[in-house]
């Protein structure tokens, strides 16, 4: 199942899993290659593991539908996951407002604190930060995944970092 992994970016390439090959075997190969990474990515965005799994399953269903149009399935499905996860995050944010999601594990204080602060960011900033500091994507790739301009992606990262820094510094009255 690792035959698709040819890039340091776990979501890039997919040549062997390209649409030309047709049906389920390629999709399955892509799925087995990427599902775990995509779930982790969606989890970091949504903060919910069950939601992350659901997002990824939905994304592959959509990829399946668009199989003939996705010239590069790796980034394509990642983009779907980012969009879907961001949408779920947004909905979750509205639903629970300022209550961060519970973390079902014991974590070091720093991790716990940062995770909670991350949950308080706007969805777009959070997504941008996850793509930047988890996937180590370039600004251009982040912009591509978020379907925005590089300047916008850069701005989101900058503002997200600034917001976190203010809160960690204790200067943010909303903290």
């Amino acid at each position, binding site marked *: 199942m690792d035959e698709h992994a040819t890039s340091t970016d776990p979501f890039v390439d997919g040549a062997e899993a390209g649409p030309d090959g047709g049906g389920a075997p390629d999709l399955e190969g892509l799925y087995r290659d990427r599902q775990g990474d995509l779930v982790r990515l969606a989890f970091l965005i949504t903060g919910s593991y069950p939601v992350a799994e659901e997002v990824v399953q939905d994304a592959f269903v959509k990829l399946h*539908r668009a199989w003939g149009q996705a010239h590069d399935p790796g980034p394509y499905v990642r983009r779907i996951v980012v969009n879907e996860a961001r949408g779920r995050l947004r909905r979750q944010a509205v639903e629970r407002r300022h209550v961060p999601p519970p973390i079902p594990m014991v974590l070091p204080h720093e991790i716990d604190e940062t995770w909670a602060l991350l949950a308080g960011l706007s969805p777009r900033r959070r997504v941008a930060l996850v793509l930047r500091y988890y996937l180590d994507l370039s600004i251009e790739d982040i912009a591509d995944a978020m379907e925005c301009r590089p300047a916008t992606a850069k701005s989101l990262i900058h503002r997200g970092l600034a917001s976190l820094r203010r809160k960690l510094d204790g200067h943010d009255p909303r903290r």
Partner: protein
Amino acid sequence: MVTTHDVEQRLRRTMQAMADAAEPADLWPDLTARLAAVPAPARPPEAPVAPRRGIRRPVVAFAVAFAMVIATLGVGLVLHPFDATEPGEVARVVSRNDLAWIPLYRPPEMPAYDVGFTNALPDPITLALVRWADGTETHASSGIFVREWVSEETPDALYGAPADDGFWENDRISEAGPMLVLVGQRGDGSYFAVQGIWTDGALIDRDLVRDVARAIRDAEPLPPAFREWVDVTPAVSGESVDDPMWYFTAATPDHVVYGTVVARIVDPRLEVAKAPWACSVAAVGTVPAAWCWGEGGGTMTWQIADGVAATVSSYDYPADELMAVAESMVLMSPDDPRFPPEE
């Protein structure tokens, strides 16, 4: 003093720790079961694309969402006739040629309104507008138009400098396929968007998109192709559909609020007639607002259950921004505490 570098390192450690803690299960059997229940994959690009003419062809490819302030409307579109509808019932919007009808659900709380549709030949372009009981009309808006109220980005920030003819142009690869977005600015400063969506790899007439945008901007008659009215019947009737889409607009005359829903439909009756509104009821609780997410990337349907505002969404538009649009609409009422601004 926490530095940016400190924050970056914290983020890296936190995300890695959280990601490491996640152990994805093998859900391939589950996905296989899901795939068995969905339509077959779209045809590959090299497959012949039949000309899309008339209502027998799936309405899949192309949507135009117009944003205009009510007072500035000048486009001479004609609404389809429609059946009178009791609140809470499914409306029958009858096409001009009486070949088909579009089921619409009219929320009981919504004031009287009529919705018109058209698909223009040669390419299926859907325009939507609302005619109120007092005769005024509201065109469908696009998310981009509303963005100027809620977004940090301007068209410049999104699309760079406008082209020579003044339109900001952007080619995107949406989930549905290649999409062309043109953003124009009218004389009153308001923005509007014309979006073209391809879903089957067919090359659309880009000039037509530009002609439409130009006509809207300059308050000139739309291209003749737009006078040819057909319907979105295939998306509604459940006939062979590759990627049906459906569009409608709902608004209230009491607010400077209007929205467009561009719903991608799997089961049109479920997705359109039931799911969005039913979801709004189910999720309402004590909060007189709700939201629901349809098929398609970024598609969202949202409604205020008490009927004071509208539904807003757009196909393949970033979902969180759509929600921001919807919330901003509510926030336009300064006394409304339901959607406090985020950070």
